[in-house]
């Protein structure tokens, strides 16, 4: 059975590397995108089980990405967890996010969010 796929979207390359490393070590499959446009190409290529989404990004920001995602029937219901350094959880509500993590968040909080959401959507457990 395929392991759950997590798409990480952030314009900061170190943030991308770090989160992908954390998730990979926990047994998740990960894909990455540097902005919303790249993320749309990723979801069109393979449907992720959950999306970790930064909001402030060049080219296409997180809000515009979420709106575009909701227009795609095949992936419109993919849960989004906003990961943001702007300290404003209300912005997560604006994109209909299933969760919000304020940077710098704890690794365990990240893993708990991802595990909870992938369990809720019936995705296989990591490492299986």
């Amino acid at each position, binding site marked *: 059975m395929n392991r759950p796929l997590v798409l990480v979207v952030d314009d900061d390359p*170190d943030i991308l590397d770090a989160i992908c490393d954390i998730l990979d070590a926990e047994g998740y499959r990960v894909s990455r995108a540097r902005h919303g446009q790249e993320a749309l190409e990723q979801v069109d290529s393979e449907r992720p089980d959950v999306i970790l989404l930064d909001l402030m990004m060049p080219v296409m920001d997180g809000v515009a990405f979420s709106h575009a995602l909701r227009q795609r029937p095949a992936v419109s219901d993919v849960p989004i967890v906003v990961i943001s350094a*702007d300290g404003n959880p209300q912005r997560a509500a604006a994109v209909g996010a299933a969760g919000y993590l304020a940077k710098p968040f704890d690794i365990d909080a990240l893993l708990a969010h991802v595990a909870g959401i992938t369990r809720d959507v019936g995705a296989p457990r990591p490492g299986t």
Partner: protein
Amino acid sequence: MEGMDARDEKPQTARSRSDEQLTSRSPSREDPAMRPGYLGFVAHEIRNPLSTALWTAEMLVRMTMADRGGARGEKLSAMCLRSVSRVRQLVEDHLLCERLDTGGLPLCIEAIGARDAVDAVLERHPAEIASAHGDRSVGVEADRGLLERAIEGLVAVAGAERTPVSVTSHVADGRVAFLVKGRTAEEGALSDPVKGTPSDPTGRALSIALARRIAAALGGALVVQGGGWLLTVPRAQGYTAPPSTTAFP
């Protein structure tokens, strides 16, 4: 030392222009209403590398000693160090911006060779600066540390994404102008960044804001000219260049 004022902190070798110029008189922010947006940007910029530093450090702690010495351990260690360095740059730039805005920062104004200031930055950034030109007989009246910091920041910004940088100094209208050219300078970048301004993954997001404040504190200015950053500071009249070795002919 009790009772010590800014003037007393000045080394004996320093040449002051006047007592009024011994402390910074940088103008405050352009518009106080922009302050929340500016601080929001600073917080955002610091939280990103702070996050990476914390996560990579924690991941390293969770690894076994043997794994820590492996490829993944090395990668995480490098990321952690890079992130901490980025945080340090941002915090130091932000604090200096704040001190300059507040005013009263002790300055050590002295006659400095314009080219010597460039060479000092060049020694720290040999990879970024592709060429440096300037008359060695030209001097500026400036605080050496602040001037070098401003030039260094401009070089770092102009040298983003490995863009070759040229630094030239020349006399213009009784002042000395340092022109830093590399990646095209944008007029809009002279304004303080606010929340929503694109992030800088190198930690140099406040370099232009700081260079502009330093220029003002030294009695000069920072503008965009011909796609480069033009930093002007007062010229030291009658400056005599000491004999020195040079990094560039």
